[in-house]
């Protein structure tokens, strides 16, 4: 009798071969990739979390844990963020710049986006390209250029501006515009021309169609742009630093830069940094959430991709 189709003897199962099978399983989760991602996240975030933790330290040390306390936030009458005039002023000036940037860059950016989207003919390619230049220019180069323009150039509009809050606002608006344009344009592209055409077909003049149909549809993109401008402005260091004039124009990032390595600082500086992180997180997070909840799925996805791309660029 011939042996037909008997299964070959399976090799003995050792611990090593079981582990190899577990790793090589094609239906298993991508464990190596997941591990690499978690490791990277830990590496990037743990220092930030540590800094936030030490803002709640009981003693003056920023590296040795001495217990939990909120004295550096508003407890301590001299040194806490709430009481120390330097720190409080840095906070309020940051907020002031952020609100101004938001209020100026968003309407200008929306108008610019609409204009660029409708521009047909010569020059539109160049204009579109120029709009993206601030996004890719190194911030230092832009800051130095602005510095030279405001201090050395004696042509009228530039000569009227001295370094200080005005210059800081102008500098921040200059690069915020590009972000607003990118966000609004991507939303415009997903809306398409049909709604406005339908409105015009039904009797609305082009301006009326814009006001009653397009702007309501753009609302989530406008709101998201405002929040992004806010977050960008609060975060910004280079341009704000170069455009500043005296101690009165200090913002949170500028203060952190100047004092973080000094010896006579308290965990109040950690508290200030935590405020910075929190505000930025809330700003970007709210922008995401708004974009996701409004509009159809595909539109939300395009715009959130644009926003996340920008957030990554800025980070």
């Amino acid at each position: 009798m011939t042996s037909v189709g008997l299964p070959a003897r399976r090799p003995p199962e050792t611990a090593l071969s079981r582990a190899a099978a577990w790793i090589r399983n094609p239906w298993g989760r991508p464990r190596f990739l997941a591990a690499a991602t978690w490791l990277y996240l830990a590496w990037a975030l743990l220092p930030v979390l540590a800094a936030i933790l030490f803002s709640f330290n009981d003693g003056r040390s920023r590296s040795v844990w001495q217990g939990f306390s909120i004295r550096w936030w508003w407890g301590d009458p001299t040194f806490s963020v709430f009481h120390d005039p330097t720190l409080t002023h840095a906070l309020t000036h940051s907020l002031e710049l952020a609100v101004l940037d938001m209020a100026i860059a968003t309407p200008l950016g929306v108008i610019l986006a609409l204009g660029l989207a409708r521009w047909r003919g010569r020059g539109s390619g160049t204009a579109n390209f120029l709009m993206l230049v601030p996004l890719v220019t190194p911030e230092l180069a832009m800051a130095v250029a602005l510095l030279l323009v405001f201090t050395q150039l004696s042509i009228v509009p530039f000569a009227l501006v001295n370094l200080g809050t005005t210059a800081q606002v102008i500098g921040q608006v200059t690069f915020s515009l590009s972000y607003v344009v990118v966000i609004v344009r991507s939303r415009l592209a997903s809306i398409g021309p049909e709604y406005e055409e339908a409105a015009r077909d039904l009797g609305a003049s082009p301006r009326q169609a814009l006001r009653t149909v397009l702007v309501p549809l753009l609302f989530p993109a406008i709101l998201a742009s405002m929040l992004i401008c806010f977050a960008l402005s609060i975060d910004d260091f280079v341009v704000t630093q170069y455009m500043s004039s005296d101690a009165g124009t200090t913002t949170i990032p500028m203060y952190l830069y100047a004092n973080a390595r000094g010896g006579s600082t308290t965990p109040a500086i950690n508290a200030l940094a935590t405020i910075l992180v929190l505000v930025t997180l809330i700003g970007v997070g709210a922008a995401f959430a708004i974009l996701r909840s409004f509009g159809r799925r595909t539109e939300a996805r395009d715009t959130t991709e644009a926003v996340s791309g920008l957030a990554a660029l800025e980070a």
Partner: protein
Amino acid sequence: MSDEVRAEETAGGAIELRNLSKDFDGFVAVDAIDLRIRGGEFFSLLGPSGCGKTTTLRLVAGFERPSAGAVLIDGADLSQVPAHRRNVNTVFQSYALFPHLDVLENVAYGLRWQRLSKADARRRATEALDLVQLGELASRRPPQLSGGQQQRVALARALVLRPAVLLLDEPLGALDAKIRKQLRIELKALQEEVGITFLFVTHDQEEALSMSDRIGVMNEGRIDQIGTPQDVYETPTTVFVADFLGVANLMSVEAVSSDAGGCELRVGDFRLRACSGDTSARGEAKVVVRPERVEIRAHDGTPPPNCLPGMVDRTIYVGSNLHVVIRLATGALVQASIANTGSVSAYSQGDPVLVHLPDDALRLLTGDGDDAARRTEAVAEDPGGAAR
């Protein structure tokens, strides 16, 4: 042209396109079209994608400016009139219902610009919604409606403004087959009830045939033929029109001689007689016969005239009909369509058959001639003409 006809063409939503052309950076989308649509007519522009029918519609609506020629409605030249001031409304292919307004507000949108009181606007919008049988859905939002319901809202939104002309850009394209068939009947009934001129753009020839008073078949920016559905289907004037409308069994033939009733054709070793089309032509030509006119006979005895032997290539069962594809002895493929009457007619691959092509079903075409198109339009206008 009689005065009667002329009066009909300058009242109640009559459209005239005079030498209308549009090109985009060198690409000619619409090539010198001349068209006259009567008031109250249901006119379809039929053609494949990219033939220029949507561009023509947009030119009438006012979204594009003509490169040459003019658009006239009721005799008035609209070339300088912007879209929002034309008495023309459009139903878009994707409906374009405003997502931030509910259904009633969508329908009442156009009335905002007509300075009606809020109560009047509400009343008219509700009436329009009742006209399309959507009264109960007034407070829903567009994303909550089905495709067919959205389409009706788009219709109501356009009709509430009582335009002279309604433009429809493939409005039934996004719906499934059953709803499409039902809406075809409803749209036609609506048009008859309201009495407005409908200019309907589609690539679906069944839609155009079933709904239109007249059809204009477009190809590469020009109109190949204008006529009633019967004219366009049964007496096509060009190969393109014959091929686009339904299945066209086209054969290359040589026209040899003609007499009082028709002409003699030579195809391969066989002779055929055709009584329809350009029977005075000579030389190389094409002949077209519709599948429902092709008769299949058994191969026995002496074949009657206009019969060609062939072999069954394959059969296609589509429920209501059986399509039998036959390869003729001349090498050409011919499709015959047999109605499903319940009696079993079994044709299998390889069966030898005799194909009878009745002489009045064979139509001779001598290619795509402009004179042929103009001749057809003249016939359509002339109530006494009967040339076939």
